[in-house]
């Protein structure tokens, strides 16, 4: 196999919204490469539907402080408030910047960016829903991805599409580049760089029912973990309440923002009971738990494990103009017309609040004191700033990728201007070569897909919306057993040329490792907060657990350390809606 060397100032891994935003920031002033295992326009940012939150106040009074409060309360007070403040302030300028770059937002009659309601976003610190989500029909993420990709083409960003990053190169305590495999040829490429920005997205594919793309396998998160670096708050994984049953394909919260409601098997609008103020626009963690509770207590539809989303009263015109894509999803995948029929929905694994710890400039940090690893950055869903705390609000994922992709890019630019190119360690290729030699030699004990399928079922049953200590212990045991079995797995395809079987097999390895970090962190946290709900510890315990988890893999086991939460403006309070 050939080895090809490249040298850049900045290497960006992943070409979704965060990666492209970082590329736009750096590409004018530095030599930048963007690597993706897909083509950039295939990235999962394109699947985001409902909107991007920013307190523009185009339709009614709004303030970034209100957005900040909602984000902190939505995150069950685990969000770092210094970072949330930066995000909610920056969100306003970045939305204008997106508009200036050409993003075709939906418009108000006055020609301003239109805004709609979204779960957990309120006026005046929780009084009532507010119109804050800027949107482009129900394809906001698609339009963000397209707009950023277009800006990258304009800026002549150098893309390496369909390159699969296998390993990080660290040298003398710094990031020094990455090792990647060109999928088309099987060639190995060494990308040396002064700075590396990780933007590989989430890992919803660890669960059986998910809104995530097949490519969302936590690649960079697993690579960091394998290098003995910490992962933050991995126990917090969001289930979006309205996945299309049974596929898990997302139906945007924008539907409820426009007025759709949830109904149980008795035809009852059950969210009125659980969240009297915000009702169907309560945060996602709460609604997902309520749906699970309704189903468990026998109030699913005809005793089945789903409930209904009712859009019928919105009328054909609103449904088809403001929610065209999800209307088509429902028609294509279920043969149901949401204008006249009820839509079966089920919570779907959607978003990782946890990930690679970073500071507010995207710098990857390695300990409770937030010591950065020079030259290494992460942004977007693979990172944990932490903005989202224990539960992310709708629209804040798009805010996160734009704001922190931009900040990571800007800081990387500052960094490379005063840094030299780190030396390439003699063993830079060794780990990648060893991994490839392992997977491309010898017979396979079983298909990788069998391991993945068991993992996804186990995670869904034991580590999803409702968790218990015994269930999580079982989950950890199963994951460890699967990791053991995975040692015997090899892809059936051994060719150099466009070997997607090898890629998928490596991805199963990433999923196993992020699942281990998730399950062990969840077992360790003996309280309930946000998306992490322990039936054996059903209340929030600020005295012991108002802190971030840092999970390190050391000598084959996990060591937990803890990091304080930044609290600046809002003292933790009971979280009711």
């Amino acid at each position, binding site marked *: 196999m050939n080895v090809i060397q490249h040298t850049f100032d900045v290497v960006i891994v992943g070409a979704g919204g965060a990666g492209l935003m970082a590329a736009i920031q750096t590409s004018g002033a530095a030599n930048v490469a963007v690597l993706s295992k897909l083509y950039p326009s295939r990235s999962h940012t*394109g*699947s985001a539907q409902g909107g991007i939150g920013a307190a523009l106040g185009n339709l009614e009074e709004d303030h970034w402080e209100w957005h900040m409060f909602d984000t902190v309360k939505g995150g069950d007070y685990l969000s770092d408030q210094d970072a949330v403040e930066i995000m909610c302030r920056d969100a306003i300028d970045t939305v204008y910047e997106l508009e200036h770059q*050409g993003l075709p937002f939906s418009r108000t009659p006055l020609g*301003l960016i239109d805004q709609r309601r979204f779960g957990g976003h309120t006026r005046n610190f929780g009084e009532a829903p507010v119109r804050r989500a800027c949107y482009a029909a129900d394809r906001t993420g698609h339009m963000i991805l397209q707009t950023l990709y277009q800006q990258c083409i304009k800026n002549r960003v150098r893309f390496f599409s369909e390159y699969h990053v296998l390993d990080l190169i660290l040298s003398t305590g710094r990031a020094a580049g990455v090792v990647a495999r060109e999928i088309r040829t099987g060639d190995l490429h060494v990308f040396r760089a002064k700075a590396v920005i990780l933007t590989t997205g989430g890992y919803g594919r660890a669960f059986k029912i998910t809104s995530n793309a097949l490519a969302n396998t936590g690649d960079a998160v697993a690579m960091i973990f394998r290098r003995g670096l910490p992962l933050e708050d991995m126990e917090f994984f969001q289930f979006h309440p309205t996945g299309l049953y049974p596929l898990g394909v997302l139906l945007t919260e924008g539907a409820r923002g426009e007025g759709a409601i949830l109904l149980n098997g008795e035809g009852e609008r059950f969210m009125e009971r659980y969240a009297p103020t915000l009702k169907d626009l309560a945060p996602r963690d709460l609604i997902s738990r309520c749906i699970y509770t309704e189903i468990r207590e026998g109030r699913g539809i005809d005793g089945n494990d789903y409930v209904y989303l009712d859009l019928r009263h919105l009328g054909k015109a609103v449904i088809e103009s403001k929610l065209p894509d999800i209307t088509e999803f429902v028609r294509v995948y279920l043969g149901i017309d949401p204008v006249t029929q009820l839509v079966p929905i089920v919570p779907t694994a959607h978003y990782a609040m946890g990930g690679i710890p970073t500071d507010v400039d995207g710098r990857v940090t390695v300990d409770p004191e937030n010591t950065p690893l020079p030259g290494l950055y992460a942004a977007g869903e693979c990172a944990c700033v932490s903005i989202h705390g224990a539960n992310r609000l709708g629209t804040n994922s798009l805010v996160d990728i734009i704001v922190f992709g931009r900040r990571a890019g800007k800081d990387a630019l500052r960094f490379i201007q005063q840094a030299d190119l780190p030396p390439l360690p003699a063993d830079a290729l060794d780990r990648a070569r060893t991994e490839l030699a392992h997977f491309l030699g010898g017979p396979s004990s079983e298909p990788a897909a069998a391991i993945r399928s068991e993992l996804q079922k186990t995670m869904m049953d034991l580590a999803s919306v409702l968790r218990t200590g015994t269930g999580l212990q079982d989950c950890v045991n199963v994951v460890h057993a699967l990791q053991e079995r995975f040692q015997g797995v090899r892809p059936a395809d051994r*060719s150099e040329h466009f070997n997607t079987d090898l890629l998928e097999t490596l991805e199963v390895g990433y999923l196993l490792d992020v699942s281990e970090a998730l399950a062990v962190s969840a077992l360790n946290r003996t309280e309930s907060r946000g998306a992490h709900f322990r039936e054996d510890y059903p209340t929030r315990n600020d005295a012991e657990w108002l802190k971030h988890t840092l999970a390190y893999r050391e000598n084959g086991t996990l060591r937990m350390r803890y990091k304080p939460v930044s609290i600046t403006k809002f003292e933790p309070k009971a979280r009711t809606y």
Partner: protein
Amino acid sequence: MEVTVKIERFDPTSDTAPHDVSYRVEAQETDRVLDLLNQIKWYQDGTLTYRRSCTQGICGSDAMRINGRNRLACKTLVKDVGHSIDVRPLFGLSVLRDLVVDQEPFFQKYADVLPWLIVDESQTPERERLQSPAERERFDDTTKCILCAACTTACPPFWANGKFIGPASIVNAHRFIFDSRDQGAGERLRILNQRWGAWGCRVVFNCTDVCPRGIQVTDAIEQVKREILQENL
């Protein structure tokens, strides 16, 4: 129930010509064709090669010929195509392996129409530029494009002449030409005022028929042609 999936296979490093291989898969009427391909790859033949990612018709990775027509495998259900399913790579781009075609020329043609907002940046306002709902509606349809290449590879003039810029590029030019904020229409129209530009279109409507996003592709191309004529380039 069991369905038969016949797939055109080709590995240029070992095969001299493509050949068909049939697989039998257990399936339900509501399964996506992508689900069937995954079942084959995961449990029967790991060497089967195709692109896919989102599974929900938005990333544009898995356009292919299914029963003779370009479709997204993740947006096509068994009940749409029956129990005997024929799957082939997109036509008109070279096959890298099995159902994977070389998309580099496709993305290059996309870049050729200057697909970004062209504006005088010294005039950028502090807040958003104003655009009425009617102005926004003018190009709404062409913002839906996911660059899956289904239209371009269904186009007979493109099959006949790979130099033709193809419907997808013209759709993306349309998205900017008719955006009230954009000032680059003249430049794009000059690029498209060529035999291999918009005039390469012979109004066959295949593009419109296959677009998985329901874009009125031919109509958009005709609007671009009329704009070229009106601009007297």
